[in-house]
């Protein structure tokens, strides 16, 4: 059982020995921390390799580890419909170079997820064809899920700031 489940991490480490920073596996819950430079290649490999076939991008989000370096982490969740397997990728993103390559070319469904992460965390997804705010309105300044954004930093379109 364990041997079967760790095939993803094993193959990832074999294929990208220099890009996998860390891996983690707990009760079938598999995580790989990878360098952001190779994210598109890693995603393509996960999607296309015959023993992996992660054909469903379930989730893409970000985390702000304020005070830590690198500050941000983009988190991907993939699912293989064929093998009923899941894997999580974490990509550390420093504040000084707050960009990561868009994976729209691999899964088009990443479109709105990347826009959401951009909207709320201010992470730029290189190569995204339409990277603009998706939840907040145009004219909103800042990215409110960053930990240094004030909780009550209201920017009303109409009415008092209260």
């Amino acid at each position, binding site marked *: 059982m364990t041997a079967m489940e760790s095939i993803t991490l094993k193959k990832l480490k074999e294929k990208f020995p220099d890009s996998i920073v860390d891996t983690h596996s707990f009760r079938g819950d598999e995580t790989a921390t990878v360098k952001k430079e190779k994210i598109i290649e890693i995603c393509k490999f996960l999607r296309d390799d015959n023993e992996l076939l992660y054909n469903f991008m379930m989730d893409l989000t970000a985390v702000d580890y304020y005070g830590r370096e690198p500050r941000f982490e983009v988190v991907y969740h993939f699912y293989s419909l064929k093998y009923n397997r899941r894997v999580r990728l974490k990509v550390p993103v420093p504040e000084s170079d707050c960009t990561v390559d868009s994976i729209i070319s691999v899964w088009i469904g990443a479109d709105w997820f990347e826009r959401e992460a951009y909207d709320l965390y201010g992470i730029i997804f290189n190569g995204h064809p339409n990277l603009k705010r998706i939840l907040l309105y145009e004219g909103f300044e800042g990215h409110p899920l960053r930990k240094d954004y004030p909780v*009550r930093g209201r920017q009303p*379109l109409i009415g008092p700031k209260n």
Partner: protein
Amino acid sequence: MEEGGTGMGIINSQQSAVGSLQSGEEQILGSSVLLTKLDAIVGWGRKYSFFLYPFVTACCGMEFMSLAGPRYDLDRFGAALPRFSPRQADLLFVVGTISHKQAPILVKVYNQMTEPKWVFSFGVCATSGGFYDNYATVQGIDTLIPVDVYVPGCPPRPEMVIDGLLKLQQKVAKEKWSDWPRGEAPVTKNK
């Protein structure tokens, strides 16, 4: 003029006014004519024929559906028929959280309603922002538009809403011609 009788809704001051006529004109006119004041009869008509505009944005909407459905049956109070055009509605039900992105739409819908019009704040989010004291949420719709009845609760019990509606009916019955029109919301931009 007892509660539930044919003259129900004609307010107390009217009762005495009518009462003073008993020996005079009304006696002559007989039982086929009811004398009252225009304010009172119009208020009485209005309070039993609210046309709701359900501005439903969040989970309170489920509670609103229960309220409008057969179990709690708002139709008993003459407020059954939702109109999905603000032009045809006179009671704005704000049901749920109003975000700052949504705020201009709410003000626009309010301004589009014909007068007289009333606003019902359904649930604690519409009333005060509720526990969403954050960057995204309007801290009570009364910062945008005038509100007649506040019903807090997360969500409010249907009984609370019915109570609020009865309170609104009492308020409407007492209104005068001179109370209307009130004009558009004070926060409206580009008048």
